[in-house]
């Protein structure tokens, strides 16, 4: 009987010590972790709505929307995160749209694990800048050649699935938010 008591006691002792230490470390590092995440989203917002200097967070449906205000505190745009599955795994895109919701200001791919050298070229400025001032009247479409209409973008050679994925993610999120507007 003494043997099994010794086993349980030592396992519990180690578990308690580790729990207390981890709780302490968690409380110390938690503020820094939250600050990091907040700074990352903030950088993306200010990159996507270039004129913004401050923003207010609000909810529409389940997605949180960032209302952006420029230096003389005028409402200058909306930013939100759209996410979906790309060629390999999750893609997250921060999208900035104009106040009347009919023009994309800019986008930034904030997270992706597409194939290096091919799919992850969706992060290059060349691809992202194509979305600037793209009209949202009709759905955005991907073309292989030079875009003709104003809601078309050119796919990256060798990474059509990833390019199409980014466009679909944005379209679906815009559709979803349009109902809530």
């Amino acid at each position, binding site marked *: 009987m003494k043997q*099994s008591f010794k086993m*349980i*006691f030592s*396992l519990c002792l180690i*578990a308690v010590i580790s*729990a207390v230490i981890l709780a302490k470390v968690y409380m110390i590092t938690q503020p820094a972790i939250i600050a990091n995440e907040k700074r990352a989203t903030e950088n993306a917002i200010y990159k996507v709505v270039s004129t913004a200097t401050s923003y207010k967070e609000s909810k529409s449906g389940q997605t949180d929307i960032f209302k952006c205000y420029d230096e003389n505190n005028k409402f200058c745009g909306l930013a939100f995160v759209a996410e979906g599955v790309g060629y390999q795994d999750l893609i997250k895109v921060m999208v900035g749209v104009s106040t009347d919701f009919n023009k994309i200001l800019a986008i930034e791919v904030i997270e992706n694990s597409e194939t290096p050298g091919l799919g992850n070229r969706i992060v290059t400025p060349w691809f992202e800048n194509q979305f600037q001032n793209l009209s949202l009247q009709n759905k955005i479409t991907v073309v292989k050649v030079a875009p003709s209409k104003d809601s078309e973008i050119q796919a990256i050679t060798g990474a059509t699935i990833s390019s199409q994925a980014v466009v679909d993610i944005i379209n679906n999120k815009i559709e979803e938010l349009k109902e809530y507007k």
Partner: protein
Amino acid sequence: MNIILLSAIVMIALAGILGAILSFAYSKLKVEEDPHKEQLLNLLPGANCGACGAASCADFADKLIKGEADIAKCSLSLRDENKVAKIKDLLKN
């Protein structure tokens, strides 16, 4: 309740239950191991990493006794010359 107390309680409960299960298992489900293999197991690293091709250290010990495997394949225990020597002479008798 603050986090430290809460996590301590959760861990005590978990460790307690698992400790009880293991101690119950050790007392009720004890299967006699032949002492020869028991000594060998104490000398082997016991990390069950599978690098030697055997399923686990216990399986590797069986194979050593039956002579199907040689100690050089266990990369972890190569670290300790005197241990390897001890294993070798244990296998001889």
